[in-house]
């Protein structure tokens, strides 16, 4: 008898819960309907201008679309975006392409060309207690498979692909040593697989971090030394373009380059090495660049300088660097604030408030 009474109460509770759930579902606002809209094109007087977007962690589709619309409106025809292997491929080999589909389709609908940066290792392809950036030779083939599948899926939509990021920093290898020979081995495994999947792909290597770290440093290796070693190890046949990071730090855009200084024109020292190894036919893609205007960071400038240096950099690169196919600035907008100095690299806040530098850039592109 007691048991029956208890069962009845339980049934009533379950019914109440069900009704409550139905009400919640009914009063919930319907999701925002986002369509690609009419095919757009970018109006610009600077056709090699780009920005590095950060849409990978942006969940809502309308925010992805709005970010890309703002990129188009500022007059930047190129975006660089990270597509982490760890986010999309499960251990059984299956993929969740929904999010990259969304980002790439919206970018294309806005008339933007996509440079895809591939990296970050899923848990199943790395040892326990390692970070997302950890990649060892045992997983090179798996990464190559992901890269090839990506290249195949986005053929004609995202034909420029960067293999890994800043491989001269140990942090970018999950705190393993930053060894040029390991990176060249990776290129040799991944490059042919991408080309096989998409012969039109433009495979970019490098994306080296500007750093003065000497050989044997636990943190990384000088980008110029790293690149020289890459060439010596026969990397030239395994990339179609060299991705370069060119930050101005506290120097103006036209400050003279020197091997012991990190500034915007360090690109010229990189180019000298390419020419030295007979690789002058290979274009450079500056996939990260810019200045930071945080009030406290020791490598920042003030906001007015940041605006001026950015505009000067575009002018300098256009006039003097015919080998540079793209000049992309880090970073267009973060989905959420980092609450530290990286926020001061951006052009638009997470709340879509455009910063004064955005308006100056928009003006510079004739918009």
């Amino acid at each position: 008898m007691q048991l029956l009474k208890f069962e009845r109460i339980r049934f009533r509770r379950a019914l109440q819960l069900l009704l409550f759930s139905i009400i919640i579902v009914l009063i919930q606002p319907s999701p925002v309907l986002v369509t690609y809209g009419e095919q757009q094109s970018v109006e610009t007087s600077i056709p090699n201008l780009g920005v590095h977007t950060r849409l990978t962690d942006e969940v809502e589709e309308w925010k992805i679309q709005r970010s890309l619309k703002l990129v188009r409106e500022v007059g930047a025809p190129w975006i660089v975006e990270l597509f982490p292997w760890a986010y999309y491929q499960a251990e059984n080999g299956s993929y969740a392409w929904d999010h990259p589909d969304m980002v790439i389709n919206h970018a294309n609908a806005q008339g933007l060309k996509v440079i895809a940066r591939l990296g970050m290792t899923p848990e199943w392809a790395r040892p326990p207690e390692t970070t997302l950036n950890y990649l060892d030779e045992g997983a090179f083939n798996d990464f190559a498979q992901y890269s090839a599948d990506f290249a195949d899926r986005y053929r004609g939509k995202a034909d420029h692909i960067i293999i890994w990021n800043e491989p001269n920093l140990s942090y970018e290898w999950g705190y393993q040593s930053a060894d040029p020979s390991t990176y060249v081995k990776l290129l040799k495994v991944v490059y042919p697989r991408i080309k096989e999947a998409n012969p039109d792909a433009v495979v970019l290597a490098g994306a080296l971090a500007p750093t003065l770290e000497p050989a044997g440093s636990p943190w990384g290796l000088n980008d110029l030394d790293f690149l020289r070693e890459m060439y010596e190890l026969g990397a030239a046949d395994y990339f179609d373009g060299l991705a370069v990071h060119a930050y101005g730090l506290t120097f103006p855009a036209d400050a003279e380059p020197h091997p012991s200084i990190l500034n915007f024109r360090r690109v010229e020292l990189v180019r000298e090495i390419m020419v030295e190894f007979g690789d002058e036919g290979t274009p450079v893609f500056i996939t990260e660049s810019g200045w930071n205007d945080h009030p406290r960071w020791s490598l920042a400038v003030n906001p007015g300088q940041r605006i001026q240096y950015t505009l000067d950099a575009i002018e300098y690169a256009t006039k003097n660097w015919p080998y540079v196919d793209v000049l992309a600035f880090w970073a267009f907008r973060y989905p959420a604030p980092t609450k530290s100095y990286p926020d001061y690299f951006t052009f638009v806040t997470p709340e879509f408030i455009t910063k004064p530098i955005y308006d100056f850039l928009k003006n510079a592109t004739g918009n």
Partner: protein
Amino acid sequence: MNRRPIHTKISTLLITAMAFILLLASCSKTEQSWQRIVDEGKLTIGLDPSFPPFEATDGTAVYGIDVDLANAVAAELGLEANFTYFGYDGLYDALLSKQVDVLISALAIFPERTRDFSYSESYFDAGQVLISPSDSQFEGIEDLNSQTIAVELGAEGHTLSTSWQRQKPGLIIFTFNSAEDALNALNTGKVDLSVVDSIGALLYINKKGLRANTFHVTNEPFAMVVRSDDTILLEKLNLSLGTIKESGQLDIIIDKWLGQ
């Protein structure tokens, strides 16, 4: 006599066993980290020494508010502070990969990271502040109406005041080439208000003896960061920080570097 069905008994037993195993696992993890720190007698701290006055380096040693705070916290726990340097991008991964025990590096509490990391109590709020002369009637952001505001061109204060201007079209924004120039305009009575970051405001107020009221309009609470399973270490750090706050030692450290 207990007449509960056998499957209920087994379920209860299984749940109890699982809870016990989980408890053991979590205990061993947290104790392992804290016990190792105690055994070694040192707390390894990760920081990015590019952020004065919180952390900077002269090439041989690090100094600043966070360095003094770390030394004080470690001393309170009977440990030696051992500093390791990283770039900002590598800080959280260095903690995750157990190269350091704690990050003390002007890091604001970041809810999106709390799956893997835990934050201590805050020790400083580095958000933006609205500043008004101490003899003005201005009592906070709700009093914004048709004042003149000095900001640094392109800075966060500029972006914020532009967004306020959309709500209060009577606001007049004057832009300057630096935060100091904006505060000079306030100090000389050329404008009613200014918006800058709280560190810049404190440095200026103390350097120039500006008599002013400050109102936080954004918050950036700095805190120490540990791995989320290091609950014992977090508790120890919070206790230590609490003692340092109560004794006035934290104020002395902040005053030392912000010039009060």
